[in-house]
């Protein structure tokens, strides 16, 4: 007979909100976000760290939510795609992805947005090469990457200009 899985109670801050949830000890953060907290913006592609669709920030660090145990985030701060737009106002990365047609099917897009926003926060003036390396773990089967990179560099430029005024 299977042993009953002992659920763990976890408290964390998710997109700025104190949040409590129950998880099993082996459950990954990506599954908890989607299945327990209904934050389905975070996508799952490979479940093995290769595609970046599940990109989130844990304590401001960009990670794959499929390779983090939900129990690990006790007391930590998680940011997902749902926390990126402020009210109805899109983040510049989101706005520029729309303008440059940097998405088609959209499955990679939440991960790209979270990763690109983290890039610009880490390095406000990335070169194209730096942007391509930073985003190398975000696979996209549709766009061919060029439009994504142009959108990200454009968003970074706009954010620098806004910061200057």
């Amino acid at each position, binding site marked *: 007979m299977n042993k009953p899985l002992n659920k763990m109670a976890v408290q964390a801050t998710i997109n700025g909100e104190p949040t409590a949830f129950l998880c099993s000890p082996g459950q990954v953060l990506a599954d908890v976000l989607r299945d327990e907290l209904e934050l389905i913006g975070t996508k799952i592609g490979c479940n093995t760290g*290769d595609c970046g669709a599940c990109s989130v920030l844990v304590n401001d660090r960009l990670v794959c939510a499929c390779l*983090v145990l939900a129990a690990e985030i006790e007391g930590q701060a998680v940011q997902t795609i749902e926390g990126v737009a402020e009210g109805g106002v899109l983040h510049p990365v989101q706005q520029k992805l729309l303008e440059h047609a940097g998405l088609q099917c959209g499955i990679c897009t939440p991960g790209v947005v979270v990763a690109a926003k983290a890039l610009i926060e880490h390095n406000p003036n990335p070169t194209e090469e730096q942007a391509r390396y930073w985003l*190398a773990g975000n696979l996209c089967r549709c766009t061919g990457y060029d439009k994504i990179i142009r959108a990200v560099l454009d968003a970074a430029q706009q954010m620098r200009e806004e910061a200057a005024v």
Partner: protein
Amino acid sequence: MSIQEFVAPHSLSEAKGFLSDGAAASVLAGGTDLLVGVRLGTRNPERVVDLKKIPELTAISIDAEAVHIGAAASAFSILHDSDVPSFFPGFAEALDLIGSTQIQGRCSAGGNLCNASPAADSIPALIANGAQCLITGPAGDHQMPVEDFVVGPSKNALKEGELLVALILPRPSPQTADAYLRLTPRTEMDIAVAGVGVSLTLDENATCTAARVSIGAVAPTALLVEAAGAALVGTQLDAAAIEAAVAAARQSACPISDKRGTSEYRTHVVGVLVARAIAQAQARIVEAVS
């Protein structure tokens, strides 16, 4: 996933308790091997012991003798929140080659070493730098050179109940520099066909006084090629000395053939990388002292 229990001890003694009461326990650093293994069914721990709440496991400190890197410190924090890259640019480049930004946000040098993949990027760089493993366990603490720690593919020298606490790299003099180079079919997110770590020390006359050469992905474990280092010591790194080091490295290599390259190709490439890594480390010293 079959994991029944998750614990995050705050001290080494607590962690050792969780590893020695008979449960099938696996320690967790960044999880980029362990959780992939659980997902693929190759790892099946009942208990996961997260090491990241133990201060010694994530601390990075630099004193007059050595650089101490907690075994569970993430590659991202080593690369961006510490002075380690300025002391060991080659080791830093090895960490920067691992996976993606997301993987570097989690993966640790200690995990890369304990996982003991023949192609792990940080291992040749650690060996070249003469790194020691600080190990704790039921019988107390002890140290061991990295080249002795990896005993086979996916096999390390840790005994039941032991864990790796930190990596200790002797602090390099201004006359010492390292380099790490690897070849992969893709520029990112790929596994090495061959990898080479080199550390050199030159005196004021540009004569090499110490050299360590380590090769990865061309044998069941990363190797320290003592003959390659010996071929460089006492020389001014002239063409003949470099050729002798290249030949020694190729002689030690015993690679497999797979989709990333044939055995002959890997053996050739590892020599090319040895020559380039020597030149890069040498250039770093020249630049630092000029």
